[in-house]
């Protein structure tokens, strides 16, 4: 009886150990069967990091494709946020900027890298950065890397090509290193968006207000509704709406304007003929 209970105990213990090892192997995303090649762990044990941990709960960037500053705000409302621009040309005019507050999807970096070592070797972006959108034409294709622009010791901070430390509010100094033509146009007001009135000193949005830093090309978008058909101006024969937006239907596209305001020229109908 004692032998029997001991063998049952041993059998159960063995089972528990096998199960635990199996759970560890399958549950760890680094060793899951879906991945053909294991990722470079950078010499660090990731432990039981799940997909949920790697996917940001609220991707605020998706809601911030365009400048979020409400139109019509008076200049005074921006005073707390405005900064004088730092001269970066031979003759930079004086103007103010509103630094963008747009951040990347996994911002801040220190939420993980405060306790996880940074792997600074240039490599294709894999887990857990595989959700990270990086479409800066040369960046991430072996030519440029996170630490071309970011400071290795302080990943949220910036560093220009000469090694000078920059804050995120000075990102235009970083962009202007390569995009000098756009930077010059921006400095003189031919690029970028002026905020507030047309009078007096200019207040402009900075680069990252319109261009997401890591994927700066603007995204295609559905247009708003077009004009109604005017007298003697017909829609071209090939025209057809490809829009799925129902609000466009009531914009008067369908009925020509002269029909809607047509006056009954036959006169009152109650008269005997």
């Amino acid at each position, binding site marked *: 009886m004692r032998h029997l209970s001991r063998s049952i105990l041993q059998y159960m213990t063995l089972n528990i150990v096998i199960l635990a090892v199996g759970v560890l192997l399958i549950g760890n995303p680094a060793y899951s069967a879906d991945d053909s090649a294991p990722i470079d762990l950078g010499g660090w044990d990731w432990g039981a990091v799940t997909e949920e941990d790697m996917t940001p709960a609220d991707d605020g960037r998706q809601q911030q494709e*365009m*400048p979020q500053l409400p*139109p*019509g705000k008076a200049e005074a409302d921006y005073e707390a946020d405005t900064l004088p621009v730092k001269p970066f040309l031979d003759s930079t*005019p004086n103007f103010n900027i509103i630094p963008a507050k747009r951040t990347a999807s996994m911002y801040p970096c220190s939420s993980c890298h405060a306790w996880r070592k940074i792997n600074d070797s240039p490599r294709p972006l894999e887990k857990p950065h595989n959700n990270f959108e990086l479409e800066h034409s040369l960046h991430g294709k072996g030519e440029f890397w996170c630490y071309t622009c970011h400071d290795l010791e302080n990943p949220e901070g910036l560093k220009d090509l000469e090694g000078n430390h920059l804050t995120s509010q000075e990102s235009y100094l970083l962009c202007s290193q390569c995009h000098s*033509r*756009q930077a010059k*146009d921006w400095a*003189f*007001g*031919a*690029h*970028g*968006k*002026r905020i*507030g*009135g*047309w*009078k*007096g000193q*200019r207040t402009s*949005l900075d680069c990252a207000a*319109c261009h997401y830093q890591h994927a700066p090309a*603007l995204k*295609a*978008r*559905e*247009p*708003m*509704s*077009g*004009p*109604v*058909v005017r007298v003697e101006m017909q*829609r*071209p024969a090939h*025209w057809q*709406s*490809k*829009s*799925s937006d129902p609000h*466009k239907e009531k*914009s*008067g596209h369908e009925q020509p*304007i*002269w029909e*809607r*305001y047509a006056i009954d020229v036959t006169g009152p109908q*109650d*008269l*005997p*003929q």
Partner: protein
Amino acid sequence: MTDQEKDGKKQPRDQEFNAARRRFFAKLGGVAVAGASGAAYAAWGGHTLSDTFADFFQKHYRQMTPDEVNDTIERIKRKAQKRYGVDIECADTPAIDGVVFGYALNISKCRGYRDCVHACVEENNLGSDTQYIRVIEMDEGSSNLHAGDHYYDPATVPMEGKYYLPVSCMQCDDPPCVKACPIEATWMEPDGIVVVDYDWCFGCRYCMTACPYQARHFNWGHPDLDPEKINKTTHYLGNRPRPRGVVEKCHFCVQRTRNGDQPACQEACPTGARVFGNLLDPNSEIRYILENKAVFRLKEDLGTEPKFWYFRDA
């Protein structure tokens, strides 16, 4: 012609005359009753008799004394309250000295979203028929306006091989619409904005045919405004609710720009393609663009001297 045929034609005509006479006397009776009650309310479209008379004898805007302008503005407010049930503010801010407004638009950056079009509609109390800005979808490399399409409605813009050309009033310095107007109801203000006195205009639409940019629009009906969405900050020469049967046009948001604000289209543009400013200020952005960029204007060969320039990056 037989007598029968004559009778057959004569009889309805008599009846029609009698019916018209009945209607006339009925109206006369209505006026008499309303006049007797002292209000004359229904007979004058909901306005008082004195307002109706004052509307009829209202002068041209530029010939009014300040008191007459104030009286007119008070009447405009009462009319808006009557028609839409909203209390609007109506200013007659004059042009600022030393300011001539100009506009520059970067066609490399315009992506055809039409945000400016709808910001303009909301700002200027336009009915659903009217849009001051037309964004024309053009073939890349072409400047043929007749081949452009302003009804474009694809799933997403910009389309491959197209560029977008927003066209509104060019605020010409030698405006053909002003020359065409037989009663000087439209003129150029000292700050370069071509405006319309909506109460002086009688809707002949000569200016619309004279304009080479199709920038003038006719109010076929009373603008169908949603009272909750009416912009209450208005200007006499700008976005006040217009009467039926008059011509209107873009006025560079005179109610905003004369107070130092940007036009609504510039504020709404999400790409920063639009640059507005004072042409007489040598440090303004628009002067930098005119001096350093390859700019062009639409239909320059007509000699209308638009104050609206287009430019490209590079």
